[in-house]
């Protein structure tokens, strides 16, 4: 009998030799990443390293120049459009902006994937939507429009929508950016609880170090198109490279210098005096 990928204990997402460029610049240059099942894997790195691009590559919204991205044993970029859409129904994604449909209410936004992909009755959809909204603490906000929500509430509604179809994995794109401490704490707790309660696989892209390390089971740090460090949050804190320690601890100076490359200050000042 053929064993399923899950039974074999294979990672849910397997990225090998990924190369992707925008214009002349290589965003990824031979990236290898394994995302284990039922865990929270954080992808971290400085701004502009292509963390969001990586999520789009996993979701099949972008096509790599080389390499493969396998999700649940399926090569994402070798699938037909219909197969890709079937796979996406098992994925959820939380966009940085929430990406709620602005002409629909909170209730209708969460009901949207259920109405699109299932033949459930409206009464069943109502019950499911209320349960999903209850899970993110916004059952009472079901009649509000997206324009009436705060940034944190919008992300929680987007999270309820992302789990509407009970996906196998969720990708979070910078979920903590621009959140006040309370909203951030709520989101941190929700991501962990949802992952554990629903046995989800979570990919968390962020550069909010403290919050991410608080809930991540495994961390990949990427820079210059490659994985520069990986391991558990504890391993990263203890034995990482100088660069990783600077990134994790938010040190202003180190391998990434505080000063933009320039001639010596005294030379610059003296040159000004000579003019």
């Amino acid at each position: 009998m053929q064993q399923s990928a899950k039974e074999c204990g294979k990672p849910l997402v397997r990225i090998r030799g990924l190369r992707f460029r925008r214009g002349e610049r290589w965003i990824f240059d031979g990236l290898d990443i394994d995302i284990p099942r039922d865990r929270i894997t954080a992808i971290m790195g400085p701004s502009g390293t292509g963390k969001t691009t990586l999520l789009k590559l996993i979701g099949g919204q972008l096509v790599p120049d080389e390499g493969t991205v396998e999700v649940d044993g399926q090569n994402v970029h070798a699938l037909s459009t219909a197969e890709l859409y079937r796979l996406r129904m098992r994925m959820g994604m939380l966009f940085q902006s929430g990406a709620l449909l602005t002409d629909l209410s909170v209730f209708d936004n969460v009901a949207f994937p259920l109405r699109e992909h299932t033949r459930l009755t409206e009464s069943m959809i109502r019950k499911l939507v209320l349960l999903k909204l209850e899970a993110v603490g916004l059952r009472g906000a079901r009649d509000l429009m997206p324009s009436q929500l705060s940034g944190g509430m919008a992300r929680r509604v987007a999270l309820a929508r992302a789990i509407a179809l009970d996906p196998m994995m969720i990708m979070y794109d910078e979920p903590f950016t621009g959140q006040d401490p309370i909203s951030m704490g709520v989101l941190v707790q929700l991501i962990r609880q949802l992952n554990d309660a629903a046995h989800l696989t979570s990919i968390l892209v962020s550069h909010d170090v403290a919050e991410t390390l608080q809930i991540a089971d495994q961390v990949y740090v990427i820079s210059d198109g490659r994985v520069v460090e990986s391991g558990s949050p504890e391993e990263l804190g203890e034995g990482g490279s100088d660069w990783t320690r600077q990134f994790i601890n938010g040190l202003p100076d180190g391998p990434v210098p505080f000063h933009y490359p320039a001639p010596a200050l005294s030379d610059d000042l003296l040159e000004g005096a000579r003019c």
Partner: protein
Amino acid sequence: MLNLFASLGAWGMASLTRLGRAHLLLFPLVRGLLDILRRPRLLVDQLFSVGVLTILIIAVAGLFVGMVLGLQGYNVLSRFGGETALGFMVAASLVRELGPVLTALLFAGRAGSALTAEIGLMKATEQLSGLEMMAVNPEHRVLAPRFFAGLISVPLLAAIFSCLGVLGGWMVGGGLLGVDQAAFWNGMQEGIDFHDDVINGVIKSVVFGFVCTWIAVFQGYDCVPTSEGVSRATTRTVVHSSLAVLGLDFVLTALMFG
């Protein structure tokens, strides 16, 4: 000099690439018809926002254009004692030319620009990406209903424009300037040919509706997803649609009446 040629070449290539992308978009738009047939509500909602909300500006514009035609036509025709042909002149001008052309221009300014801005903002706020990740094709779900709503709306709006234009011409000619009312309506009835005038006018408005809505949804979908990008796309929609309508009007007129 060499730089000038290089820039021209790059511009030409970019324009051709965009034109290619615009043509490729037609396939998913047509395929989106299946989604619309399955859920007609998508089309009905868009017919309201694209068509019904444009009726007022079309009606008012049609009425005024008809009134001006009545006034100007009377001034010219009365010199030759041909006031009785006023009805025919007003109706022919509206049904053959002004109805389809001005409706399309007004549609591009009112509904086309709104379509581009709406789709562009949906792109800028990642709503279209969100749909893709929810396994919903935005070309079928968002673009196609808007495209077919425009295609259906423009001929109907052109008919409203022409009807109200004739009414405006009659109000000025028959009501204010004293043209014989029986002659006004008889001249119109005898002079207007259903096939040569009405059908050709409808064909024009269908073509203009197709082009204006196609340009609007493409510009929104293809825009740079920033506030400046959306703004530029909206401007391009109005400019490209207006020029396309005027250019196509000449071609169609030459084919139909030339």
